[in-house]
């Protein structure tokens, strides 16, 4: 109870500790979130993603500073990959946001993906709720967009900001394929570089296929020089207003909640099954048999599921 009250009073340490507990699958954290869930939904959650080297952290730093000048409070969740081999990680996004460390109106948390099944979305979703209850006006979730993570981000965000840079060559094609649907606002960072105009044009061309009533804006920025930041912030807010005005906010949050519920069912079910089959031992045992061709994987899975039927 103490932790819960401290969180409600806006104590940073309580929020920080609760996020750790949620990351570590501590049931007490879930209990607290159950009780306080009604207090979430107030913050504008913005996902920020894009290829490595796009300058996401620097851009986040500038967006936060712009919001702070208006007196808004901000939470930042910076996600970096965990090494699949050692389980360790180096989370270096704070380097670009050092000046914000001592700002009482800012809370920055670095998270490793930790490689759990759906771990990113679960822990990130919990961290978003905690910061929402803690009471910030905006929450930025920042992660490298390579594959699944940007989709995970979109599921947690009201607005997804895609950050691109000129000069990525063929990489941009691969990235584009998956991102066009999830980007609500686009930023072309390092816009003073050769090819910035072309990158922006390419994105615009891709967006021509978008037939919904929200045409994602493409904003050129130079994050290190603080150029284009206010304009970008305006786009982010315009998107939120659009969601609200058209009733799509409720729709989007409903969709996201549905995905979250299904995710949680999957995870809980998985934990339950693995728990019932005496942790992972049974699975390991069966895996060995399958590898030795003494058993096939289909029957193995069925035999585990039979135990909980």
């Amino acid at each position, binding site marked *: 109870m103490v932790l819960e009250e401290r969180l409600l009073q806006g104590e*940073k*340490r309580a929020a*920080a*500790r609760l*996020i*750790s507990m949620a*990351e*570590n*699958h*501590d049931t007490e954290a879930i209990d607290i979130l159950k009780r306080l869930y009604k207090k979430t939904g107030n913050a504008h959650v913005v996902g920020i993603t894009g290829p490595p080297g796009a300058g996401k952290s620097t851009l986040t730093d500038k967006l936060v500073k712009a919001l702070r000048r208006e007196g808004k409070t901000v939470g930042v969740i910076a996600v970096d990959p*965990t*090494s699949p081999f*050692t*389980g*360790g*990680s*180096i*989370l*270096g996004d*704070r*380097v670009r946001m*050092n000046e914000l*460390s*001592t700002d009482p109106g800012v*809370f*920055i*948390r*670095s998270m*490793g993906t*930790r490689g759990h099944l759906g771990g990113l979305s679960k822990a990130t979703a919990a961290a978003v709720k905690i910061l929402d209850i803690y009471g910030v006006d905006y929450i930025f979730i920042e992660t490298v967009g390579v594959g699944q993570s940007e989709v995970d981000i979109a599921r947690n965000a009201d607005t997804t900001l895609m950050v691109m840079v000129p000069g990525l060559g063929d990489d941009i094609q691969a990235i584009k394929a998956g991102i066009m649907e999830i980007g609500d606002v686009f930023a072309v960072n390092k816009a003073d570089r050769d090819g910035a105009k072309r990158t922006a044009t390419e994105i615009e061309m891709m967006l021509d296929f978008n037939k919904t009533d929200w045409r994602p804006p493409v904003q050129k920025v130079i994050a290190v020089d603080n150029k284009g930041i206010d304009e970008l912030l305006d786009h982010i807010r315009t998107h939120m207003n659009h969601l609200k005005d058209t009733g799509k906010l409720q729709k989007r949050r409903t969709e996201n909640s549905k995905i979250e519920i299904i995710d949680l069912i999957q995870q809980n079910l998985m934990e339950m099954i693995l728990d019932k089959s005496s942790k992972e031992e049974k699975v390991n045992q069966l895996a060995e048999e399958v590898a030795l061709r003494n058993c096939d994987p289909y029957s193995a899975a069925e035999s585990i599921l039979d135990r909980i039927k």
Partner: protein
Amino acid sequence: MDRPIRVLVAKPGLDGHDRGAKVIARALRDAGMEVIYTGLRQTPEQIVNAAIQEDVDCISMSILSGAHNTLLPKVAELLKAEKVEDILVIGGGVIPDEDIPFLKEKGIAEIFTPGTPTTVTIDYIKENLKRDK
């Protein structure tokens, strides 16, 4: 529950020699820890605020400028003022042996001087955490 140990690696003061800090960051990562790396020129206030927000188990500071007697105790003091008593605070760098007792008295749990194998630091962190793992 098995969870990764979280360590804040910071360089207080103005010196820019971050080879040691980066090597220790990598070594801790390879030992399965989550390392929050904050870079150069960190003030004690920044270090303590970051440590609180990141809810770390350990603060590991590297300093080669000779300002250790000023800056390291300040970190310990600020932690105390914030009533944070469960973070292990360690330091390393060019720090003369004769300064170590003073630093320990001020709340720095251990000082690792040049030539210390990274494994020694890793083991020390694992064995001296102030919180349950």
